[in-house]
């Protein structure tokens, strides 16, 4: 008896599961490379100026926040096929505060890593009630 045919079940199912640490890390590295060598490239010669450092910090935050708010994923996440889903702007902002390179926000990265290793999701994901998932084919 062909259960799939009898019960009209799809032979291939796509499910969501929490994104792995490897994929999250890889997507972050890809985003950093994109930021460093393309978006922030015009500004690297001026990093001795405080005003420019602020512009860079805001561009980094805008990059992560706007991509997740508008598309649910940054270019790095898209390449690694992981997704944050549909977010409100406030949620996207909270999720990406640790990437805002102005003290004290980078200290949140330590908390993020601890949460990720022990509970499978980031601290800011818990705070914003969001999740980062990847698709798996069953």
């Amino acid at each position: 008896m062909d259960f799939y045919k009898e019960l009209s079940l799809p032979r291939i199912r796509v499910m969501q599961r929490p994104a792995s640490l490897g994929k999250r890390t890889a997507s972050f590295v890809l985003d950093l490379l994109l930021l460093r060598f393309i978006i922030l490239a015009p500004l690297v010669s001026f990093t001795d100026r405080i005003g420019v450092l602020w512009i860079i910090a805001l561009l980094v935050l805008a990059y992560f926040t706007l991509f997740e708010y508008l598309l649910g994923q940054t270019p790095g996440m898209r390449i690694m096929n992981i997704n944050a889903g549909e977010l409100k702007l406030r949620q996207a902002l909270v999720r990406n505060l640790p990437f805002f390179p102005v003290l004290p926000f980078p200290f949140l990265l330590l908390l993020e890593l601890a949460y990720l290793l022990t509970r499978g999701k980031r601290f800011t994901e818990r705070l914003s009630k969001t999740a980062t998932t990847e698709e798996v084919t069953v």
Partner: protein
Amino acid sequence: MKSGNKVLVTVLLLFGLLMVALVSAVIVSVGGDVSVGANVAIIPIEGTILSSGASFNDVASSETIIKDIKKAEDTPSIKAVMFVINSPGGSAVASDEIARAIRDMEKPTVAVVKEVGASGAYWVASATDHVVANRMSVTGSIGVISSYLSFGEFLEDWNVTYNQLIAGDRKDVGTPFRELDESEREYLQEKLDAIHEFFIEDVAKYRNKSVEDIRGLADGSIYLGSEAYNHGLIDELGGETEAKHWINSTLGIEPVTVEYKHEPTLVDVLAGLQAPTLSVEGVNVPLAR
């Protein structure tokens, strides 16, 4: 959201962020140096001195350095310029261009020679108001060199014929495919001697010495910093600390430095994979080494 729309939004967002960065960079560069409290610009001269080329590729581009000099001159908060030199020299033209740009400056200039500041790099250093070098720095080498590999005899050994049609007897002087004859050798030597003379005259003018005094030192010899000091080719033994003391004593200001750095973009890295060429029509560009 459809996949096509996602791509469009991605591209538009990346473009928008890049535009913000570009506009910010333009505003900052036009606005001049606004580093907090900086009053001394440090312009590094590292690597072979050439007219163009990427600074990160071990090339000190005269084009880039002259732009930095102009930036320092046009920035009101900058009161003096320090050239930190670590270069074996390079192109005579590029070295002369930088030296002239330094001489045209109205603000005080000081050169700090690190491991090497020889030949064309010394030409540049001598143009500053005050030259500081470590006692073991390699400097001097006031001479000119031009060289190339000659394959004439190799081709003859392999029965390869060199055919070149020229209009103008000396058009192919210096071609690597045949040996130089005596008259051609003398002809090229005259050019090197002329460049050497320019080098000597400029150093004499910049160092307030007679041409004869400099000519006596200009046989291409290198001088350690301590020797250069005794010969009057530099003003002080030391490093950046001594240079800052000179600025302080000259201008009465406490030096706060800002370095004019040039970081490579991804495009620069890819473009820099092609090594800068030194040959022009088969004759090596004379190097002030």
